[in-house]
């Protein structure tokens, strides 16, 4: 979810970008209707309200799941199941205006339970250190390998660093909103972001970043 404070700016940027690349990925304006209204309607089985709740909160929920598991596939599965579980039991959401926080707790608990199971998957199918040991890539990487490399680099971060970097750099949340969600300060959020970016750059290496991300 993109935070409401930056939603319009991000949405307009996205629409502009997608017009350029020919993919209309614009989304309905968020926060209207409110979460509380959507939860009330969704609880009565309103399909459009459920759809809107998923669109609004999927990304933040995924960020939580990925922060815990450090595995994209696991995070996607956990987010999927947690959303189904939560949306089917909207009557148990005590404060519908804080649906996002309620969902985050469900996702985090589910992710931790999954991680505690024997044989839980872990990220790092490819050791990112082997990719970037000398700052070079031994051969051309395909999209999947690149994704695994990023996933492996993310796995080396701490859980809060992963959550902050995803919410800030992928989903455009401002530090204030991240701090509120994580129960920390904006300064600490910035610190997590600083360390996360530095670690990611070190792990992936300048060569890979230059070659694959036009830096």
């Amino acid at each position, binding site marked *: 979810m993109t935070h409401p404070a930056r939603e319009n700016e*991000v949405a307009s*940027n996205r629409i*502009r*970008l997608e017009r350029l690349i020919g*993919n*209309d*990925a614009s989304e309905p304006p968020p926060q209207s209707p409110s979460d509380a209204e959507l939860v009330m309607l969704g609880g009565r*089985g309103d*399909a459009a309200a*459920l*759809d809107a709740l*998923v*669109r609004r909160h*999927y*990304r933040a929920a*995924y960020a939580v799941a*990925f922060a815990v598991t450090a595995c*994209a596939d696991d995070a*996607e599965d956990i*987010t*999927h199941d947690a*959303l*189904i*579980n939560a*949306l*089917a*039991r909207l009557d148990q959401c005590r404060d519908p205006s804080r649906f996002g926080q309620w969902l985050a707790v469900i996702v985090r608990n589910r992710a931790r339970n999954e991680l505690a199971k024997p044989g839980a998957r872990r990220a790092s199918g490819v050791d990112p250190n082997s990719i970037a040991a000398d700052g070079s890539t031994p051969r051309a990487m395909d*999209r999947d390998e*690149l*994704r695994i490399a*990023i*996933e492996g*680099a*993310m796995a080396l971060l701490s859980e809060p660093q992963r959550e902050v*970097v*995803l919410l*800030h*750099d*992928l989903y*455009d949340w*401002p*530090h204030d909103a991240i701090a509120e969600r994580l129960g920390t300060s904006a300064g600490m959020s*910035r610190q997590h*972001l*600083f360390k996360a*970016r*530095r670690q*990611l*750059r070190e792990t*992936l290496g300048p060569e890979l*970043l230059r070659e694959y*991300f*036009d*830096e």
Partner: protein
Amino acid sequence: MNDRENHEDDPLTFPARVPLELIDPAGDRARFDGIIRSITAGVAVERVQLRTAAGALGALGQLSGPAIAAAAAVLIAAGAALMLIPGPAASPPRSFAESAGIPHTLIELTMSAGAPTPDQLIGAINGTSR
């Protein structure tokens, strides 16, 4: 970098953003729409299952009242019937030897003052007195 670069951090001192779009399941519009459809369909299925389970529990709850009342009535009737049926006639107290299955005649013989003859013993064991 791209249009979504965040400028709130000083680029001179702050490390630049690393593109993370490849691990974003919501990044591809078509794929994200598919995920949303899958979730909303899953919610519908889950709700039906919850309703079915709640319906079964409710039916069980409705049945449990009469069932408990019926069971209580049976217990009361059974108790009353047990109280009305006379018990077995009181039997005279039996000695340990009789309880062990030793014939009464043999017990009497051994309790008598004189020593029994072999014929008396055989008769007592066979159940006949001589």
